[in-house]
């Protein structure tokens, strides 16, 4: 597709941009507001109970140091849910430190003579707090709220990682597709939003400061204070109402779909191009060939997130790879025969999780080590074992998943008996670019990745047959299959439709030629006459 002009590009996506901004404000707003209602009392508690002060501040400080993604994943495990709830909880936890700390500092910072006077004229503890400490401490407390909100806008971009929406959606998708424009589409509004929040709260901070603006008439001051409380509520209520279908979808279950009277199938994908293409294919087939409607929950963080969501019935199907199912999910030892793997996986999934593997799409997207073509030619690398002599000088860039999985780098070292000199943890979306630009020398490429030809890279042959077969196939909840029997039928034509070359080409269309996925998929399916 020809590159559209930037303005067209933005105008086209304007409705979604607004939606994502709305979600973003909702996520940040509701979590900061909650953190205010929790954090200020905690700050007051810490003020009155010096014994609690250390532990309390310690805990909120530690919470702050947990890396955001780790926090999201921990909460995901804790809540057993993808979507808005764990994202909001994570944001609340991050917002606590500045609010608690500033509240405590504000209360402690009041001049002792003023407190003595308040006590001396006969104020109770509560009256001192309400009439003296809080009003005088407001500017410091507000500064804490402001810090928390601005940071919250930034952290909320990560919420998309667990399917909670927001401007991070664009960033995630941009990373998955290595599409810089998409990344900016999320990053720039998020930055502007942060500036706006900073400005608005800065203004409110000034209004609340008892040392300023105090000659505004009482009625005006009262109206202003009232509006400071009410405006966010009024802003949040419609946002909340309009997004509640969105939030209930995320948290919803299949029963909910039926009570709504529409039959919805929720399709998920992991966060890379091929997954998005496969998910879109399944979605279009179901939309065209059944009366079901599709809820696209694409771009979830990774295998575990998709699998857990599927098990819990938060999504109905996604495309999984046999090798991943075998080793990462079932934790079974590696096997080499593709059919054996498929049957083993199907059987175990059905028994353990009530999940059904449908017919594979046909291609094998196994891991492979990938290098620059130019290096391969120069050093005569053809198979993985060719790397051994130079391995200690080579810098590897591996995705986090590859570094951890038994069928990834750990197992690899055992079978091949060597390590790389340095290993960097890279986002799967950036890995090919990093290799092409020379930042690393070896990556864990996928055999079908369109970026391999696009960036002039080459995959090395797995001479020790370490990597198990990774045939992709739809994995569906059995419950859903029996509730909607035509689902299996609708997806059947996708079976064995796509070989390695085709998949690589489709991936390249998206990553190399920047084609839109839904349009590309429609064209492909029509071409194959299955739609």
């Amino acid at each position, binding site marked *: 597709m020809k590159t559209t002009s930037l303005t067209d590009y933005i105008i086209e996506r304007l409705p979604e941009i607004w939606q994502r901004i709305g979600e973003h404000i909702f996520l940040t707003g509701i979590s900061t507001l909650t953190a205010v209602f929790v954090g200020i009392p905690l700050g007051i508690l810490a003020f009155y109970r010096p014994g609690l002060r250390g532990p309390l501040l310690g805990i909120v400080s530690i919470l702050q140091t947990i890396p955001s993604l780790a926090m999201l994943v921990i909460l995901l495990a804790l809540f057993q849910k993808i979507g808005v709830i764990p994202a909001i909880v994570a944001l609340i936890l991050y917002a606590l430190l500045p609010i608690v700390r500033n509240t405590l500092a504000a209360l402690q910072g009041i001049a002792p*003579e*003023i407190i*003595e*006077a*308040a*006590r*001396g*004229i*006969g*104020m*109770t503890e509560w*009256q001192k707090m309400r*009439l*003296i400490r809080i*009003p*005088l401490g407001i500017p410091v407390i507000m500064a804490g709220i402001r810090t928390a909100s601005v940071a919250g806008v930034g952290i909320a971009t990560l919420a998309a990682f667990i399917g909670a929406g927001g401007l991070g959606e664009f960033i995630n998708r941009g990373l998955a597709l290595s599409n810089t424009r998409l990344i900016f589409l999320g990053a720039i509004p998020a930055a502007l939003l942060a500036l706006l929040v900073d400005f608005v709260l800065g203004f409110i901070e000034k209004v609340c400061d*008892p*040392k300023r603006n*105090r*000659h505004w008439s009482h009625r005006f001051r009262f109206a202003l204070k009232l509006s400071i409380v009410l405006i966010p509520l009024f802003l949040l209520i419609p946002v909340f109402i309009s997004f509640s279908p969105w939030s209930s979808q995320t948290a919803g279950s299949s029963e909910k779909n039926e009570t709504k009277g529409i039959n919805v199938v929720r399709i998920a994908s992991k966060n890379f191009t091929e997954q998005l293409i496969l998910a879109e294919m399944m979605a279009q087939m179901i939309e065209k060939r059944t009366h079901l409607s599709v809820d696209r929950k694409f771009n979830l963080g990774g295998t575990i997130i998709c699998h857990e969501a599927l098990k819990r019935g938060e999504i109905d199907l996604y495309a999984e790879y046999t090798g991943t199912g075998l080793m990462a999910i079932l934790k079974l030892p590696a096997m080499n025969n593709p059919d054996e793997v498929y049957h083993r996986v199907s059987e175990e999934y059905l028994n353990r999780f009530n999940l059904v593997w449908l017919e594979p799409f046909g291609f094998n997207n196994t891991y492979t080590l990938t290098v620059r073509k130019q290096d391969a030619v120069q050093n005569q690398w053809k198979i993985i074992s060719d790397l051994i002599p130079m391995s200690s000088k080579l810098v590897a860039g591996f995705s986090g998943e590859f570094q951890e999985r038994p069928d990834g780098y750990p197992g690899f070292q055992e079978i091949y008996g060597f390590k790389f000199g340095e290993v960097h943890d890279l986002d799967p979306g950036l890995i090919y670019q990093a290799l092409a630009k020379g930042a690393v020398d070896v990556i864990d490429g996928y055999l079908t990745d369109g970026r391999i030809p696009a960036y002039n890279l080459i995959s090395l042959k797995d001479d020790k047959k370490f990597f198990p077969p990774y045939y992709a196939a739809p994995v569906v909840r059995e419950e859903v299959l029996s509730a909607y029997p035509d689902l299996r039928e609708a997806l059947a034509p996708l079976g064995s439709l796509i070989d390695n070359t085709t998949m690589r080409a489709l991936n390249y269309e998206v990553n190399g030629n920047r084609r839109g996925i839904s349009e590309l998929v429609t064209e492909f399916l029509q071409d194959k006459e299955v739609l």
Partner: protein
Amino acid sequence: MIALDQVSKSYDGVSRIINNLSLEVLEGEILILLGSSGCGKSTILKMINRLIDPTEGRIYLDGKDIQQQDPIELRRSLGYVFQGIGLFPHLSIRENISMVPHLLGWPEDRINNRYRELLELVQLSPEIHADRFPDELSGGQQQRVAVARALAADPDYLLMDEPFGALDAITRDSLQQEFLDLKQRLNKTIIFVTHDIIEAVTLGDRIAILHEGRLEQIGTPEEILENPATDFVRELFAKSVKFWKGFKSIS
């Protein structure tokens, strides 16, 4: 009547800031607590108000032991002008003065009448000053407001801790004169702390001279001047005798 009965106070458990002090404040008088800086004058006022508790001894207010009273109610029934003023910087003059009546739950219109009355009493204008904030008044005006706040709920007793301490001599003079007028009209029992001998003899019905936590002498200015009980008192007043003679000849 306020009575201190063998009161001692120690902050650190070793040295006594106040040592075995007994003292009576008579109905309707101004008793001056006179002593050098750090001798425990503020500590005495704070103990009467229960901002701090004595280590030993008892304090009686109208015959009742203040330790048996609710401290909040006690404090609201005593007017207190704090050393260093202690106005609330975020509240207007009107709000500062109305605070105690507000805490006592007075109806709104009564509070409104009261603060105007008080502002006029301390020679400030309700129209000009009521809606200003403490830092928008001069030091002398702030002192007046502090006095007005202490008088707000019309207490029988007034504790005044160096109310004119931080003022220049001219302002202090005129405030002292106003204060004497005020006292005539109000008929309160007042404990007035100062380390200024001239202020003590100008304002006091009686003077209690404190030194190192002990009461050196208590009596009317004349009694003390004519019969200093200790060397300390004698030396203290020696410098002021000339002034005192002049003062007496005028009155």
